[in-house]
């Protein structure tokens, strides 16, 4: 044992360097957030809750094609498509159920959707006391979509799916013209 090592041992050299480190950290800014009061700024493309979207004229976009159900790796989506009651040449989703207890938030359904009827948002605080509370119906998804329209548009833009729809060019993406506004009630 050299004299230097001996001195280091009796002066608790290693413990002192550890103490120095922790003391320095006392004056650093906290890295944590005071959650309910401060919230993280989420990046574009954040994969939060999935919502259904509408056209500008309030008509729902979903055509009940089942592609999202087919691609969903967690089998969280179930669609029951049917002929639109007022436009016999159109189809729509009679029932659309998204089970968020199964959803893995992979975003495949949004990519699969040919009419941009689905999008992901920055919503994440939708906990529930029951499992049924996390199984969302079409109406719930549409309501959430209305609430987070900006988020969903931002997500679609981030995924280069927004321009494809609005440029008129149909690059692997069908362009369904919106259903004209239905007479009262729809």
């Amino acid at each position, binding site marked *: 044992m050299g004299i230097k090592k001996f001195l280091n041992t009796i002066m608790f050299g290693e*413990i002192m360097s550890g*103490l120095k480190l*922790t003391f320095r950290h*006392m004056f650093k800014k*906290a890295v944590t957030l005071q959650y309910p009061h401060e919230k993280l700024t989420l990046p574009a493309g954040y994969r939060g809750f999935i919502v259904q979207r509408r056209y500008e004229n309030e008509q729902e976009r979903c055509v009940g094609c089942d592609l999202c159900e087919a691609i969903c790796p967690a089998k969280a989506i179930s669609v029951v498509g049917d002929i639109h009651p007022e436009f016999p040449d159109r189809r729509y989703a009679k029932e659309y159920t998204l089970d968020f207890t199964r959803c893995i938030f992979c975003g495949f359904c949004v990519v699969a959707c040919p009419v941009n009827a689905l999008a992901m948002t920055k919503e994440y605080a939708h906990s529930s006391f029951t499992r049924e509370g996390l199984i969302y119906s079409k109406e719930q998804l549409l309501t959430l979509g209305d609430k987070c329209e900006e988020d969903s548009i931002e997500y679609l833009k981030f995924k280069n799916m927004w321009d494809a729809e609005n440029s008129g060019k149909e690059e692997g993406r069908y362009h369904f013209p919106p259903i004209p506004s239905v007479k009262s009630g729809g």
Partner: protein
Amino acid sequence: MLNDILAAVVVIAGVLFVVLTMVAYLTYLERKVLSFMQDRLGPMEVGPWGLLQPLADGIKLVSKEDIIPQEANKAIFKIAPIISLVPAILSFAVIPFGRDSFHFGGITTHPYLTDINIGMIYILALSSIGAYGILLGGWASNSKYSILGALRSAAQVISYELNAGMSIIGVLILGGSLSLVQIEKAQQGGFWHWYIFPQIIAFVIYLISGIAETNRTPFDLPEAESELVAGFFTEYSGMRFSLYYLAEYANMIVVSCVATVLFLGGWGSPLPMLDFVPPVIWFMLKVYSFLFFFFWIRATLPRLRYDQLMKFGWKVMLPLSFANVIVTAFVVYMIRH
């Protein structure tokens, strides 16, 4: 006579109030210091900066269910936390926290409850009794984690109390008294009179033994969360749990107070020109720097292995403290003759 009793009651009430408030807020302080060292903020919700957190914790603990395991030895299970807490509080009786006596009306109060001439032995004895609370609580719980924690605690307290006792002897030789008041008085007049300098080895040994005796990191084997759930108080809940908790923090304050009195000159100011600051302030400042040091150590060091703990206690610290006693005695004898 009546006035003396009245004065004693006033000081007892004052010391109890201050100690219990300090204990409660020590938990807050510890959480805050640990949080800041870990780059977070700690309790922030209850009151401004979480200042009312100890109050909320207290209400929570008191209103919780008091669970007693079916297989437990009920009488001992109930009394063990009290055995743990009472000696810790009793130790404050001999700690002198200031210089001046106060007079109001015909009543004279001293800055200590009593100045018995064996104050140091009294504190050592009480801290040994406190270990019984831990042992009995662990045994009476009738649970394997509790008994393991209690056994570890007993072994640890015995080995480290020996070191603490031996390290104190050097100070007692220098001070020439067992009374804490006398030892404090012998160190007045500036920091070069403090016993930390002639007794630096004893100081380090006492500090390490103090951390070990209060079962704190890195010597928290009796309550090692990752191995023993919560050690000796695994089965305790509610108010009885909080009594153990209070005892741990009260013991921390006792150890800090004793270290302040023995090695840092108690209420004495470090420089004669700083005498205008009230002695109580100096005392609290020194005590709190020790407490801060305890938190600091906790934020820095991981837990020791059991054999390391025993090896360090018996093979390193005990011979060192013996050597310290012999050298101190020899040097003091040579100087006085």
